[in-house]
């Protein structure tokens, strides 16, 4: 076989691989959209998205409560995780003695890969009884436990990416600021953090995506009640949990409504990503 023939053939083979990969990715979007159409058509887009009652066996398919659940849990998780993660990243990148740094850096990376069900499991065994005792009512399955579990889960992700971006700030910046008589904290606050802002933003967006998309760990600790959570000790349900718990037994319009839940989740994630992108563009 001549090398020219191989060259030509390989071009097609590689092209086909590319096409297959793209077809798969297109198929995902098309199939999920297609399977959600009957629900949107028969129930109505606004009745699905703004409906507050989810009771499939009695024909109620509103997912607003779960949308609220997803958003609330994620926001609460971010509220806990972001300050901790940023502090931890500053600590690892700028403050910690090299010995601690050498030890913690690979540890944080390991923690990124830990299966989320493990976080859920520990939350279920340790946190639920604790919160039940604290609040004095209920079983402990609550928005708060879910948010803590998610916060711990995304902590390593946000930490490690923010740390990377702080480390990528050239040393001259630090030296320059210090030479001007700034304290170490002033240097970090006014020089390092602004310079590393893109990476920090990216890490938070990634963390948000992981938190909102997490499924099994949340099912284990949130109680899955399709109601608006009245306080953080109340149970709730997330969009992801709704899909995972019911998809295997759903048929007909119920199945389609779960695909619609998937579409809403997909759009929610896209919204978050684009918002982050816009915010980021505005500032630069």
């Amino acid at each position: 076989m001549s090398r020219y023939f191989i060259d030509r053939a390989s071009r097609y083979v590689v092209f086909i691989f590319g096409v297959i990969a793209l077809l798969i990715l297109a198929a995902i979007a098309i199939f999920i959209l297609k399977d959600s159409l009957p629900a949107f058509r028969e129930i109505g887009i606004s009745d699905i998205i703004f409906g507050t009652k989810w009771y499939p066996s009695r024909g109620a398919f509103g997912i607003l409560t779960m949308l609220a659940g997803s958003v609330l849990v994620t926001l609460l998780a971010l509220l806990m995780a972001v300050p901790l993660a940023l502090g931890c990243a500053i600590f690892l990148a700028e403050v910690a003695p090299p010995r601690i740094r050498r030890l913690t850096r690979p540890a944080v990376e390991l923690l990124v890969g830990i299966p989320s069900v493990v976080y859920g499991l520990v939350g279920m065994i340790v946190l639920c009884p604790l919160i039940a005792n604290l609040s004095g009512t209920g079983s402990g399955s609550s928005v708060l436990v879910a948010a803590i579990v998610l916060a711990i889960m995304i902590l390593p992700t946000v930490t490690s990416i923010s740390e990377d971006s702080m480390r990528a700030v050239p040393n001259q910046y630090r030296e320059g600021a210090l030479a001007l008589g700034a304290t170490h904290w002033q240097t970090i606050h006014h020089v390092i953090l602004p310079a590393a802002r893109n990476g920090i933003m990216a890490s938070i967006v990634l963390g948000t995506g992981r938190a909102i998309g997490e499924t099994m760990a949340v099912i284990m600790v949130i109680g899955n009640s399709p109601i608006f959570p009245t306080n953080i000790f109340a149970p709730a349900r997330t969009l992801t949990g709704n899909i995972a718990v019911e998809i295997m037994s759903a048929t007909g319009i119920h199945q389609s409504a779960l695909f619609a839940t998937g579409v809403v989740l997909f759009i929610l994630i896209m919204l978050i990503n684009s918002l982050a992108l816009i915010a980021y563009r505005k500032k630069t």
Partner: protein
Amino acid sequence: MQDAFRNKWPLLLLTGFILIALTSACGPASTCITAGGSTTVQPLAEKWAEEFKAKNPNVDVIVQGGGSSAGVKGVAQGIFDTGTASRELKSSETSQWPDLVTYHVALDAIAIVVHPSNTTANLSLKELRDIFATGSNATWTVLNREEGSGTRDNFEEKVMGDTEVSLNSEFLPAAGAIKQKVANTTNAISYISLGYADASVKALTIDGTTCTKDNCRNGSYPISRYLNFITKGEPGGLVKTFIDFCLSSEGQQLVEEEGYISVK
């Protein structure tokens, strides 16, 4: 030569992967029956599967969960050879898939369970209905099964009637999780299959009737149901042999051992 080889090692690795995958595909196809659906039937079906395998070493019975509705849907769509359900077929299901056949393989009661320290001993059906229609509050933490669970469908049919269960309650996807939560929460109330009820939770009497096998057999306990195997059309071959085995005196003895009630 060696250099040329070194450049190719990822390709070799790949071919290796693919070969392994292919050879595992060509492995001896042992005969297997898949049964799936109700998580109530699951432990029982797993026991049956084990005994059946002991008698027929080359047949594997694979048992999966997912909920009764998943069992009905699964067998109708050809995912399972036999679906398992802890409820009867709904009219919507029989009209959608008219060729489904139901086999009663065991009888089961649904016990209303609370924390062992709870002082409540008896509830009337109406009180029970009111508790579940109200949902969680300071007095009760109400736990429900998820949509699609046969236990939930039975509970709704026999206790709730036309009343809806309050959505202000927890929805857990498995009987084990319900039992665990009830055992750990002092004011929890929920419903689980008799086969799951043990000393870690307290079963209430309903209108004065205790949830026992005898009361269930004679019909005085109000919340009982059949556990079912569902097939698409009349089963043949191995599936029939398996169902016959479950209905045999040996199979029914396992039913009693697992805490359910035999139908023969």
